């Protein structure tokens, strides 16, 4: 009975949502449309490259126009890690639990060793070039974390130092907020771009945008690695 009620409810919600989405012109071309100039998206598309010299408009939106949101999102991740740490924290007398005892095959072992530096390098590449190519801090950080995950599941004695992760995480976060304050104190507003913009498509361009994205990348990487390690270390009976 309850099952049918739920299905009925979902059907009603679905009906209205489909009706709404059918009306929305997704994917319409807004770049060449002069009428779109007055909307926010039109403004971004027409003004980002000349004003901020950032080739990837999405990065400009994420880090500059809506940088405050990104600061908030980084904080959400930080809080999730902090919360996880405080809930899954084990006291010393409970004993430090090892990761689950699974031995990986030699194939995975050597493959992981080969791939690990490349994956990390790719992650670094993605967040350093966040203002030029698709991708950025969050994506690059996640890629780096997958490299570490690969090592964690291949080698059970692969240890990451939570102390070092905490350093990276904190320093990256501090960098982000400090750059924000710098904008505020150098006569502008919080998070304002105070560095010279340079030329479009150059690695060093876009003022603070790449700097912030590198900080975000390192922070996300450190946090996700911390999450993976904390979760993998849960004792079997705690699962």
């Amino acid at each position, binding site marked *: 009975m309850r099952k049918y009620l739920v299905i009925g409810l979902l059907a009603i919600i679905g009906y209205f949502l489909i009706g709404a989405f059918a009306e929305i012109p997704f994917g319409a071309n807004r770049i060449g449309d002069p009428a779109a100039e007055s909307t926010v998206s039109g403004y971004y598309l027409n003004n980002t490259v000349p004003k901020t010299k950032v080739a990837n408009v999405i990065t400009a939106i994420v880090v500059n126009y809506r940088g405050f*949101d990104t600061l908030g999102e980084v904080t959400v991740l930080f809080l999730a890690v902090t919360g996880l740490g*405080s809930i899954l924290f084990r006291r010393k007398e409970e004993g430090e639990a090892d990761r689950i005892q699974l031995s990986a095959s030699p194939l995975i072992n050597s493959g992981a060793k080969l791939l690990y530096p490349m994956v990390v390098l790719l992650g670094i590449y993605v967040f350093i070039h966040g203002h030029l190519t698709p991708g950025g801090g969050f994506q690059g950080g996640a890629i780096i974390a997958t490299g570490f995950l690969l090592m964690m599941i291949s080698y059970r004695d692969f240890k990451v130092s939570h102390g070092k992760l905490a350093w990276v995480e*904190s320093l990256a976060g*501090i960098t982000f*907020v400090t750059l924000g304050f710098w904008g505020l104190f150098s006569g502008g*507003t919080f998070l304002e771009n105070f560095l010279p913009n340079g030329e479009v498509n150059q690695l060093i361009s876009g003022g603070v945008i790449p700097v912030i994205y590198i900080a975000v990348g390192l922070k996300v990487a450190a946090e996700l690695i911390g999450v993976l390690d904390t979760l993998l270390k849960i004792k079997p009976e705690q699962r």
Partner: protein
Amino acid sequence: MVITPVHYIAFPLLAAFLIPLIGKINRQAARIIPGIVLSYLAFVSVNLMIEVQSVGFITETLAGWKAPWGINLVFSKFSGLLATLISFMGLIIWAYSFNFKKVDTAISLKYQTLQMMMVTGALGMVLTGDIFNLFVFLEIVAISAYSLTALYRNRDGAEAAFKYLLIGSFASAFILLGIIILYTQVGTLNMAEISVRMVDVSIGMKTLIFTLFAVGFGIEAEIFPLNGWAPDAYSQAPGPIGAAFAAIVVKAGVYALIRVIFTIFDLDVASEFLIYAGFVTMVIAELSALRQTNLKRMLAYSSIGQMGFVLVAFGIGTQTAVVGALFLMFNHAVIKGLLFMSGSYLVYDTPGKEINALKGIAKQLPIVSFFFALGAFAIVGLPPFAGFWAKLWVLTAAAEKEMIMLIVIILLISVVEIVYYFRVLNKLYFDKRKEGVEVIKPTVQAFASMSVLAVTIIVVGLYPDIILGFLKNASDTLMDKSIYIKNVLGENMN
């Protein structure tokens, strides 16, 4: 250094990222720094409140892009009032948490950071002028609230936190979906500009967006039937966090709902929704409170009931009613804060937090019991206390609109409140204490923070004019959305 609203967000974030590093040098830092930051936020509040009274409206652009291109913060007489309330309550709860039970020991030095971030998130929700930014700060509040609920790491706490997590994620998904659909219709995320462009949106779309927002924010604002998480979370979370839920988290949820309704949608459409939703919430929650045997669950249901009352008052929608609603929110933050703080010491380590275990405890904990009694008197609305004035304003507003049924129900509900609060007081003062039961005396900091709240309740009760001026200004600012639009968009208005 000029004080601007962004200090509310930037300093706590800086502190939160610094704490893990300073904590390596001195473990006490993780407890002290949040207090320093929260004191500074209270100082910022006072400064900005003084400034806003003379200039009328403070807006701040971020990242150098004017609204609608960038994100802006708005410290109006309305949002400023709530920001001030939240920052002061945050500071008081920090002081109360000091050395509270297991919360503030070496095991959970992260507690203070999470509590500070919960306050920051709520401040961000109140101050932001951008609807997606509102969502981001809601996430900050929610994520800290989930982990704080589970902080004791026992079975019930985990269950409560998991339930809260599921329902909260549901709320986030609904709000995000609502924002996406809204953006496709108006092409902007700035609330002032949305408000301008909302006239072009079809009524069907408006209804859909409103429903999504009402469900999403309704969960945070504890509207029936979306409040299933609340009693568990309130009773399982550490005592100070119960107070923070009532004083901070719910306030931010109600603010978001009210901001969306008053600024983005027309009140006429939404006012019936507010009245009915608030009404049902109030009646069901207060009747549930009557049946509770667990003190904290009783307070939680009472809290939900009060929020229902606030929504009814906003729904009536006249100036008098909005002043009453804001007064109720102020009262609820202060009084429910005091009730949770004193209640936490009354039921300190009793397993079920049973009201029956409190027999005659007033002899052992006279001052804590007095605080609880004061809170109970104030919240049910007995004349010399703060609660009375708020109820009077709302009842007057209802009478002006000739809503006789509503008045009758509100008065009947007040009787229900009196019954369940006085039942507890009766146990506290007039029952015989079992021999040899240990009680815990409050710490100095907890005692000080409870005293501050108690004094506030008494002073505001005797001289309500102290805050009425602020409340009236706030309600004027809230109700006239053209002020908001003009001040936020300025010359950019199109």
